[in-house]
């Protein structure tokens, strides 16, 4: 594998700002991005990426290959939590197994966004329907995780639980809703909308991403300590499961016959783990699960792995297979 692709990926300001965040915590600098700015950056990124995806979709309708891609995406979002759960169940309490399974079945919008900037710098295109794929992959794993938990848990007769609320938390939580809504607005307003919103949604995008990744670096580094308690098994899980999912993603992309850009994006979605939508939903639906396990796994291991080594590695594999 070409080391230059890794270096090329690293020399992207947003990625470097992620490292700067890690470094700040390591050196005990008091740098911090005060609340609620990270929340704003994340809303901005979701809005911008959703809007852009919608605009791109408005350029051409859905074809068969796209439909297959979306199908594959949903399939992965259902299967990954399933197999993960059974792997995890043997080593840890049920609630944690279910929550971690959901975490890895769902996706990370910021990993997706970092991948778009990686592709853009390489001049490789990807389709707007990938944003739809991302939106579709956010929620199913949450439902699967909770279903599995309640199936296997003995005292699942908790009076306080409501499936209705769970579905709402899964499909209508703020981040999923904003991405889908912006997608729809982008699709409706098309190029005219894009022209109006572009300076906001595109030009300053990289800068806001850099700021957001700086904060992700800070948070990830702070959470690293939690992982020591989590132990080697979960650390290994947080590295190997993404790779496995990425390999399946590459295989599916190959079978569907996706172009390289779409293939990488689908792969990255499969490989990524959620630290926004899933933790909030799990906290409400399976409060017994320990967020000090599933949050740092996704945030402090899988996310950095994907944006640092994963992106160039997955593209390398795709380059080989597609040639």
């Amino acid at each position, binding site marked *: 594998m070409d080391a230059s692709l890794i270096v090329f990926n690293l020399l992207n300001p947003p990625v470097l700002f992620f490292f700067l965040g890690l470094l700040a915590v390591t050196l005990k600098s008091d740098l911090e991005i005060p609340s609620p700015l990270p929340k704003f950056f994340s809303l901005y990124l979701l809005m911008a990426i959703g809007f852009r995806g919608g605009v791109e979709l408005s350029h051409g309708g859905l074809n068969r290959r796209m439909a297959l891609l979306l199908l594959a995406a949903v399939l992965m979002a259902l299967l990954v939590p399933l197999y993960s759960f059974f792997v995890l169940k043997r080593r840890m309490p049920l609630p944690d197994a279910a929550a971690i399974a959901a975490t890895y079945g769902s996706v990370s919008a910021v990993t997706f966004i970092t991948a778009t900037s990686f592709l853009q710098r390489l001049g490789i295109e990807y389709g707007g329907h990938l944003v739809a794929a991302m939106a579709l992959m956010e929620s199913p794993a949450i439902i699967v995780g909770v279903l599995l938990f309640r199936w296997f848990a003995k005292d699942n007769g908790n009076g306080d639980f409501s499936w209705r609320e769970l579905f709402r938390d899964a499909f209508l939580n703020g981040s999923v809703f904003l991405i889908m809504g912006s997608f729809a607005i982008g699709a409706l307003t098309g190029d005219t909308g894009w022209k109006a919103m572009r300076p906001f949604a595109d030009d300053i995008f990289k800068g806001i991403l850099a700021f957001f990744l700086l904060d992700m670096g800070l948070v990830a580094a702070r959470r690293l300590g939690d992982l020591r308690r989590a132990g080697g098994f979960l650390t290994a899980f947080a590295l190997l499961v993404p790779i496995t999912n990425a390999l399946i993603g590459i295989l599916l992309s190959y079978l569907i016959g996706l172009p390289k850009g779409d293939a990488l994006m689908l792969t990255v979605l499969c490989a990524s783990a959620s630290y*926004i939508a899933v933790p909030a939903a799990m906290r409400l639906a399976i*409060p017994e699960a320990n967020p000090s396990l599933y949050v740092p796994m996704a945030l402090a291991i899988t996310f950095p792995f994907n944006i640092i080594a994963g992106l160039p590695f997955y593209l390398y594999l795709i380059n080989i297979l597609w040639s």
Partner: protein
Amino acid sequence: MKPIKKIEIITDSLELPKLLARLETIGVAGYTVIREVTGMGERGLRAGDELTGVFKNSYIIVACPEEEVSGVVEAVRPILKRFGGVCLVSDAQWVIH
């Protein structure tokens, strides 16, 4: 001034809407909420990072007559049991205006 009980509740921000709904159901006359507080307890450090939204607490104050305390406490207890947190009850004087 009349004697009153002050109930302070600290719990997971995610449960706040449900908790307030319950307080309104049992008919408390009022409450005050500080939406973002951080803290440490049995469930470890909850330092309030924005990214995940799961490590934040809210702080709720309810001033109510002594006879309503047990109602509030019973409404709150199941939430504290499941999601963690603290509930303190103390004496105060309410300034009548």
